[in-house]
């Protein structure tokens, strides 16, 4: 059995200050899994460890550089303030979403501009800030970027009261964390010259119907007609298709929970099949 290892540049991006252990003690143990450093690995079952702890209190300090690097685009600021007016305009453009308004919100939401530049629109649904991407067919529901599947408790970080502090340091809450995770994971496979959120836009518009559904889980697949990714887990094979994994939340929103280069491994046999 061989164990594919991501390109060196990707591995370097995974380094964080998580562990005080010397890297040499880690490399032998994790090299075979392609994880040369403890990085931001952490416990997911409790709030208190690693990702859960670091995210609400300055997570970006310990976050691998690729998280912000993957989101950054030339000519755009590192973050973008989404004002009440922008939110209200977004709601007015999407009256079918059932979001109440008009309401005044004493906050400014800081969102990385990359998804906004790619066509996503910010919307506040009364509980949390999300980004919506319209479908190609206006009768279809929009695709939603939200952090609820990662950690609903992180949304408190979004409250920035400009009345108390005229120059608050931008912080990232639930949504920012979700965007960073999507971007961070895409750095392992995204092809040079492509931007994740633009690809999401193109894939969503190009795949109006799911490839398959199981309950509330739906997988869409779109062929974008050019090399968009390198599948490091498949000997660097080029991919032209992107799969979008979507979970229908309790209110019917189509929340994007994963995206990766579309594979042909649906037909990979496992040893038991081969023995039959």
């Amino acid at each position: 059995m061989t164990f594919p290892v991501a390109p060196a540049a990707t591995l370097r991006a995974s380094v964080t200050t998580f562990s005080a252990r010397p890297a040499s003690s880690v490399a032998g143990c994790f090299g075979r899994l392609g994880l040369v450093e403890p990085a931001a690995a952490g416990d997911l079952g409790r709030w208190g460890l690693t990702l859960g702890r670091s995210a609400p209190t300055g997570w970006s300090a310990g976050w691998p550089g690729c998280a912000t690097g993957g989101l950054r685009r030339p000519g755009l600021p590192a973050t973008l303030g989404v004002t009440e007016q922008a939110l209200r305009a977004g709601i007015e453009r999407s009256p079918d979403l059932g979001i109440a308004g008009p309401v005044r919100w004493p906050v400014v939401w800081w969102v990385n501009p990359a998804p906004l530049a790619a066509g996503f629109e910010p919307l506040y649904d009364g509980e949390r800030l999300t980004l919506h991407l319209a479908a190609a067919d206006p009768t279809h529901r929009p695709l939603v970027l939200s952090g609820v599947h990662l950690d609903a408790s992180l949304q408190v970080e979004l409250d920035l009261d400009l009345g108390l502090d005229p120059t608050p340091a931008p912080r990232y809450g639930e949504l920012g964390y979700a965007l960073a995770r999507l971007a961070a994971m895409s750095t392992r496979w995204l092809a040079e010259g492509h931007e994740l959120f633009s690809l999401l836009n193109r894939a969503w518009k190009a795949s109006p119907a799911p490839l398959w559904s199981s309950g509330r889980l739906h997988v869409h697949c779109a062929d974008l007609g050019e090399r968009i990714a390198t599948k490091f887990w498949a000997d660097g094979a080029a991919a032209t298709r992107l799969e979008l994994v979507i979970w229908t939340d309790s209110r019917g929103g189509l929340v994007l929970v994963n995206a990766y280069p579309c594979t042909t491994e649906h037909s990979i046999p496992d040893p038991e099949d081969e023995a039959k």
Partner: protein
Amino acid sequence: MTTPPVPAHVWESVLPVCDGRGSMIGTGVVVAPRQVLTALHVVHPEPAPLIADRLAVTAIISLRPWQFGATRRLAQSSYQRTVILSGADDGTVDLALLAVPELRAPSLPTRRTPVRTGELVTVPGYPGGWRTASHGPITSADEADFVAHVSLGAGISGAPAIDRHGRLAGLITMDHATAGAIAIGPAILSAFADRAPMQLRARDLNPRR
């Protein structure tokens, strides 16, 4: 639309694991009648009582690496990996079997063969207390553990990675920022599924142990 690679009935076998106050602390999967598999760090050292799908947990079983028999070397490797990656040390492999006598949910079969990179797995669970699922490819694997391109939040520990045949192929224990979910693989899971119930039966026969 193609046939879903994951059968719809698997959702019935995935449960929230809660502390005595009803706060969700992880995810579990039914692997045998009245038996739920989860990550050990979800329930240890959580004080009693524990609740699985609103039902009382009456016993928690874990195994030391040497108790995994022929797979003890893999068990030791997975244990060490967990300690170094997460910084948490529960003293053994990050697996726990919960006895839930009143549970009626169907169980998932455990896969006995190794996973391969490129295979797709589905991961249902309760991150943040919300029922959610994701799906993605296995991007690397060795005999003990594997990594899947899936990211779900706190509370997904103990969630199953289900293969396209509806079998339990892995149990999610950790997360990596750029790689995704880290799971204990089928070799260790199947050894645990074979041996932990014996400990449970021994405990039932001699409750003072």
